[in-house]
């Protein structure tokens, strides 16, 4: 086939349009996008959030879930704009509160797969309290946290995961606050599945997201990304492709880390990818269901 480029039509100002020639049918991933939503997506050219969206859809597809059985609950921010493009039950809530809304939804519909989609600021700053309690309860929710270490949507303010000394619009002289280790936090608070990968390692993301959703309890997947538009520009880190390359060069798999000498491990600064927690713990809605049975007089 010689014609690899489907015709580019002129887009109306401020409008997207429905794609021609059955683009949605080309792959299972595209199939799960909303056909009544306007594309292209609102994210900047090269933003990693779109990559995470692809990984999420492939994971849901791999698990064979029915679209009606999936609910996406998002907070506020660039990452939280993800659900709008996907053909599931989608709830776009208030900043930092996705996990609290998701808790109510999961308790009302324990049979649904509830996935909370949040950025680093949304989940760990304003949402920090809900994050640790959802983990403590082992609430049956998958928390997909896209960590680009900045508040992107509002123009580049520092977040609880911005590296020390990094520049941001509200840290013009360099960030003096040490960042949160998201995965350690999640593990300490009680999450039963915790994993981290990067948008360079998209297929590994697919796998972790799949496992996270399949885990009955509270799962956390940290998808390390980049914001070349704000953080990248303020810290002179180059284009999206440059920052993608940096993720490749500055991350290390758990197995490779395990082979380092203790001295090298102690001085490691690369992003550690892998599954850190994968345990069986009673999941909240199951425990409450047993409570109901007990209270109603049956055998728990």
């Amino acid at each position: 086939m010689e014609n690899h480029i489907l015709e580019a039509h002129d887009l109306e100002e401020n409008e997207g349009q429905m794609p021609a020639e059955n683009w949605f049918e080309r792959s299972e991933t595209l199939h799960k996008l909303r056909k009544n939503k306007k594309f292209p997506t609102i994210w900047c050219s090269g933003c990693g959030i779109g990559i995470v969206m692809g990984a999420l859809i492939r994971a849901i597809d791999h698990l064979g879930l029915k679209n009606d059985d999936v609910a996406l609950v998002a907070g506020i921010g660039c990452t939280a704009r993800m659900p709008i493009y996907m053909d599931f039950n989608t709830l776009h809530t208030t900043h930092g509160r996705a996990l609290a809304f998701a808790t109510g939804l999961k308790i009302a519909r324990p049979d649904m797969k509830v996935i909370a989609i949040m950025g680093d600021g949304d989940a760990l700053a304003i949402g920090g309290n809900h994050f640790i309690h959802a983990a403590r309860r082992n609430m049956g929710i998958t928390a997909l946290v896209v960590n680009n270490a900045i508040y992107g949507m509002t123009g580049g303010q520092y977040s609880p995961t911005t590296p020390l000394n990094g520049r941001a619009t509200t840290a013009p002289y360099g960030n003096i606050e040490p960042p949160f280790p998201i995965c350690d936090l999640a593990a300490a608070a009680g999450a039963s599945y915790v994993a981290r990968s990067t948008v360079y390692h998209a297929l590994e993301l697919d796998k972790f997201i799949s496992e996270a959703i399949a885990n009955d309890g509270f799962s956390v997947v940290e998808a390390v990304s980049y914001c070349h538009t704000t953080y990248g520009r303020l810290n002179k880190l180059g284009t999206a492709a440059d920052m993608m390359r940096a993720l490749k060069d500055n991350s290390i798999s758990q197995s490779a880390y395990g082979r380092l000498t203790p001295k090298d491990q102690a001085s490691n600064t690369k992003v550690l990818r892998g599954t850190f927690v994968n345990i069986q713990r009673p999941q909240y809605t199951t425990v409450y269901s047993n409570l109901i049975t007990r209270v109603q007089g049956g055998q728990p």
Partner: protein
Amino acid sequence: MPDILSQPSAPSPGLAPVKKGPRGEVILYANWCKGCRICVEFCPPKVLAMDPGEDHPRVVLPDKCTACHFCDTHCPDLAIVIRKLD
């Protein structure tokens, strides 16, 4: 590094010729592509190319596609799909 893929291998006497050609079919939906160049810069056999000022990549070496799927799993806009060819 020499592009060994572009040199035809001489068939050994007595052996059938090795099947050549692309292992994947590249389709790009230009209206969704925002020209971020991730696919261009990371494609191992350099199937795609994009000059400064162009809106979206061109498929310049379609026969070299190995269906590694790097581009369609890393396109932030889901604007490129690789179909595996038999």
